[in-house]
Every structure is written in C-alpha cells, then in structure tokens.
C-alpha cells in the first residue's frame, strides 16, 4: 500500500541508446509541492540535455541524486510522496531501492529500429507498444525518428507507435524519388501498406505535419486523426534562412546559432546534438536530398503546398504550436479551420521536446478521443 503513496523519481531512458545520464541540476528543493508535469530537474545525456518532468504530484521528500553525478537508467534520484507518509517509511524506501538491471540484449534488440522496403527506397522505423490503435510519427525537415524520443514511450502505453525516418533522413535511403510533399505522403502511405497498417493516427512535426495533411487529403480513409506539431502547410511564410543555413552548414560553428533557433531555451542545444546533426549531414547523398526537399516545399523562400483548405471535421485535427517558434509562424495555427489549437508558452519550434510531457498527454488525448 505504501508503494503507491511513494513515487520514485528515476533516471529516465530517453531513446534506445541511453544507458546513463548526468543530473545537472535540481529545479526544486526537498519539501517543495510538486504538480504532475512540473520540471523538477535537469539531465544531460550523451545525446541531449533536457528537463525532467514530475511523473506525479506530491511533495519532494528526498533528493537522493547529487548534481554532476552520472546515474544509470532507472536509478533512484528522488522521492515524491504525500506529506502524510512518515519519514521513516521514506528512508526505508530509499535504502531498500534496488536499481533494476539494464535491459538484456534480447530485450534491447526487440526494441531496436527495423527496416522496411517501400516505394521509394528503404525506410528505418521503430515500433513500440501493443495497443490496437496505430500511431505514425512523422518527423520534420532534417530530423529523424529520434526527435520523438521523449514522446514515443508515453504514446506506446496505450497504442502501437511507429516512428519512421523519411527518405533522405536518419538511416533511410538517401535518394528521394519524389521530394515533393505529395511524393513524401505517398511514401508514408506505402509505409503503411508495407506494414499492413490500414488506418492510423498521424502525428507530424513541421514538414511532417504537411505530409500528414497531404496523406489525409489524398487517402482520407487511412487517417483516424491528426496531431500537427508546428506544422508546415498552413501558410506561405517560413524562415528560409534557417532552411538554407541548415542545408549549407558543415561545422559546429555554422550549426550552433542555427539550431538555437529551434528552441525557446537555446541552452538545450548540446554539443552532442550538433555532433549528431553533423554526422547525419556528412553521409553521402544527404545534402543533395535536403536541397531537393527544400526546393520542393519552399521554392523561392515561400511554402508551396498550403493544405489548410483540406482540413475537415471528418478527421479530428489537433494543432500544437510553441509560442516562440522562429521557423514557422505560430499565427499559422489560426488557418487550421475547425482544428483544436493548443499554443504552448516557453516552447519554440520543437514543443514535443521542450514541453514533452504536455505534448505527449495532448497526443494521447487526441488518440483516445478519435478511437
């Protein structure tokens, strides 16, 4: 019974390869009242730095984790409990806590990304969860499936979540047969056909949002709902300097200011994040692929495919936007007629990373309502 009243805060697992993380700061002190979703501490991994949000409400009774110390995934770093739980019980919980062993190879392999051949090349994707509802997560320009690392586990609690690398991105084929939004939408439909997914909830970020809308327009029977995160396709304006800069950048110096524009809080851009982007951009074929995509969806610096008119009440649509988006104007949200709109404070172009648990909760609600 006490187990339920005591909520452990453990080192989260952000993405497949994460084995440990460094606690870089506590944002609350022991004794503080905490609401679910409050940012309570900051963590840095070899891929990214980010804030960790409280899994539940209560009082922070113990801050076991020490700043600047590296902890394995699932190690205890704090304890949340109701004030009525006696100190002795908390201490007993802390001293009795055993960090579960790391996933064995088999388990890790079951989770590992897979590849599928579709029209237009080989796609990498990861699949999580076993729910009846299927969800497809589509990243944006220059991204890959890792962009959903803070969201996919939450979504997979109640659905089967598929995150894919679009052609030209991540570890998918770098040749893009048809770099237009319509061509990419056909690739997503082909991906669904290859995996036997008849209907799915589409979640698209940025360019992925425009692709989701195009799938809904051209193959409406395949789409149960849409969640569009800072989507392209709702107006002509776009920060073309960012797009061109991203295509051209080939050093950390070039990237630093550029990637900062993605976030409200620029300190989220870690050295590792830049290294990951550079490693991707150096792969043969990536720069021409990005160039052809950019020329496809934003020729002359304006978005070509405006899909707002295709939205309709038959496919429930949720639009999520960061108020401080510097890539696509948040004002475009008003063009999503009939859609539910959520504007998030303190988020830039990557609200699914900056306000991860809020966005995950919104996506889950949207899926539940439309199921």
């Amino acid at each position, binding site marked *: 019974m006490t187990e339920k009243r005591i909520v452990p805060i453990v080192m989260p697992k952000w993405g*497949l*390869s994460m084995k440990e993380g460094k606690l870089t700061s506590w944002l609350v002190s022991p004794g503080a009242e905490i609401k679910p979703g409050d940012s309570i501490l900051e963590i840095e991994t070899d891929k990214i730095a980010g804030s960790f949000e409280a899994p539940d409400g209560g009082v922070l009774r113990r801050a076991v984790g020490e700043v600047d110390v590296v902890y394995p995934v699932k190690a205890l770093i704090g304890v949340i409990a109701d004030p009525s739980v006696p100190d002795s019980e908390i201490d007993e919980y802390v001293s009795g806590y055993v960090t579960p062993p790391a996933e064995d190879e088999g388990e*890790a392999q079951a989770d*590992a*990304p897979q590849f599928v051949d579709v029209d237009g090349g080989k796609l990498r994707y990861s699949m999580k969860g076993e729910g009846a509802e299927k969800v497809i997560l589509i990243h944006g320009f220059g991204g890959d499936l890792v962009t959903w690392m803070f969201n996919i586990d939450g979504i997979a609690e109640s659905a089967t979540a598929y995150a894919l690398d679009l052609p030209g991105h991540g*570890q998918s084929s*770098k040749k893009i047969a048809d770099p237009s939004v319509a061509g990419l939408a056909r690739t997503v439909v082909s991906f669904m056909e290859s995996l036997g997914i008849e209907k799915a909830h589409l979640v698209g970020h940025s360019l992925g949002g425009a692709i989701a809308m195009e799938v809904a327009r051209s193959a409406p029977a395949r789409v149960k709902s849409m969640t569009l995160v800072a989507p392209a396709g709702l107006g002509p304006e776009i920060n073309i300097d960012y797009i061109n800069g991203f295509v051209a950048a*080939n*050093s*950390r*110096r070039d990237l630093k200011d550029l990637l900062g524009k993605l976030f409200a809080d620029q300190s989220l851009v870690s*050295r590792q994040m830049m290294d990951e982007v550079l*490693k991707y951009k*150096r*792969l*043969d074929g990536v720069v021409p692929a990005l160039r052809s995509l950019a020329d496809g969806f934003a020729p002359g610096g304006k978005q070509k495919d405006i899909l707002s008119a295709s939205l309709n009440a038959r496919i429930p649509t949720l639009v999520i936007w960061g108020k401080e988006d510097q890539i696509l104007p948040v004002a475009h949200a008003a063009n999503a007629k009939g859609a539910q709109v959520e504007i998030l404070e303190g988020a830039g172009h990557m609200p699914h990373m900056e306000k991860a648990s809020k966005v995950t909760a919104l996506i889950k609600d949207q899926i539940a309502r439309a199921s």
Partner: protein
Amino acid sequence: MARKLSMRQAINEALDQEMARDPTVFIMGEDIAGGQGGQGELDAWGGPLGVTKGLYHKHPGRVLDTPLSESAFVGAAIGAAACGMRPVAELMFLDFMGVCFDQIFNQAAKFKYMFGGKAETPVVVRAMVGAGFRAAAQHSQMLTPIFTHIPGLKVVCPSNAYDAKGLLIQSIRDNDPVIFCEHKNLYGVETEVPEESYAIPFAEANVVRDGDDATIVTYGLMVHRAMDAADALAKKGIECDVIDLRTLSPIDWDTVLDSVERTGRLVCVDEANPRCSIASDVSAKVAQDAFKSLKAGIGMVTAPHTPVPFSPALEDIYIPSAAQISEAVQRTMGK
C-alpha cells in the same frame, strides 16, 4: 544501438566502399594482399596489421602487392594519380618515407603549382605512425610535422574509427596528395561508425570536450591522453577544452583561436619530437594572433628530442602521458 567498428575495420570499410563507388580507386603496397607468391590463403594477412584484409578477393585486380621498393611504388602511385586514377598506396611505416621524399616533396606536392593548376594528383599515401608498439627507432616515429611543412601536401591523422573512415573517404575524393597517418596503437580502438559512406571535411577540428579554464590542442593517440588528463583535472575543478585537430594541413586555426580567446590558456600536446612540431606550430600561431587573450605562457607537452627507445621502460617514458599533460595545464594556472 549503433554498430561499433575498430579503427582497423573502419579504414578497411572506407577503402572497400570507395573502390565500390569509383572504379578509378585502387590500392597498392607491400603485402597488402597477403603474401602473394607464398603458400596457402592469399588473403591471410591483408597488410602487416591486417587493415586491408578481405579486399583482395572483393576487388579483383585492384589490390596490388608491390616489390619492397617504396621509391618505386609510391612513385608509380603518384604517376597513376597524375594520369587520372585515385590510388591509395600503403607505405607500412611512415618512417620509410625517407626513400621516396623526391616523389612526394618534389613531384606530387609540386605538380599543381608548377603546371599552373592544370595537373592534379589525387593520391593517398597511408602509413602507420607513432610509438608504443615496441617497434624501435625506425618504425615508431611521429613524422607528421615533416609533411605538414611542405606546401601542396595535405596531412591527416585521425584519433578514432569514426573520423578515420570519414577522413579517409575525404582523402580519396580530394584532388591533392594526402598523407594519411594511422596510429598503430589506435587500430583496435572501437567507436560507433555508420555503415553508409560519409566524408569529414578537412580543416574542421573536433572539440571533444568543453571547458572554460584551459585549451588543450592535440591529435592522434594524444587525444586519448589529453582526455584522460582533462578527466583528472575536472575532478580538481579545472575544465578544459580538448581540441582534436584531425587534419594538420590544412589546419583549423579558427577553432583553436576561438577557444584560446575564451580560456586564455593553451597547452599543445604532440607525440612528435619538440623542434618544429605541430605543438610548436600551434604555439607560434596563438602567440602571434591571440597574444592579448593569453593569461599565462603557453605549455607544450611532446616527446623528448631523442629517437624512440627500444627499451620498453624507456619507450613508455618517451610517450607523453596524461600526468604530464595535467601538470602542464596546472602550470598555466599557476599551480
């Protein structure tokens, strides 16, 4: 998640993928196919340390064993490059370069300049460098500065498998002669390496650790010693930028100067002998261009001005250590 390769495997993969991509790429050197003319499996060795293992059968006619004459086959590679091929010559030990200096210094390095930019020499000469292999004075030198000195040559020295693959692919695609230096004590070290081909641009240093107190500039095996030193210093509250130059010619001065302007302290670490070394070169550049940013004299940690000793005990002392680097950084901080 991602696949790990040793530096030996990463170099092999780079050669394999470039030969598959471009029919003008071929490789030549002593014993790279594995002792042709001998008994048994032709592919048994693949070079003295097994770097080219497996390539002989995969790329028939394009993995050429050569006679024991460095001056002949390095010259032949340079000639083939001038005629439109992209040869990769393996010279075993960079120490043997002495017998082909004319081919490299006076021919390959000069063609583009002397023929008014009309001639290109896209040759790569791969060779092992560095001490710590108990291989004595004639097989252990870090001769990177000698080649860096010559205009017209590019000089590369990776510190890990990821960089080795991307830099070797860039070297093969580059239209100038490249001296590609492989530290023999790094061949077994594994890092994550993408399966796809990728090229790392030259003159793009890698900042392998961030810190505001001091800058350590180095390359090759010494990157690992510098990281050990930086870890030890961090425990004492001293945070270092560690810069892996990756390519010595061309060199990324911007990254070095930006860092020193922020930290105000510089320690240059080089496994080469100290006179006219990469360490002294970087020191001179910073003293010239960022003098006002310096809060202390520049530190240098190098091998001593002696040949590499054969005695294991002496050889271990000869190679710069993490402790020496850590002391040098602390000296710049007045400690």
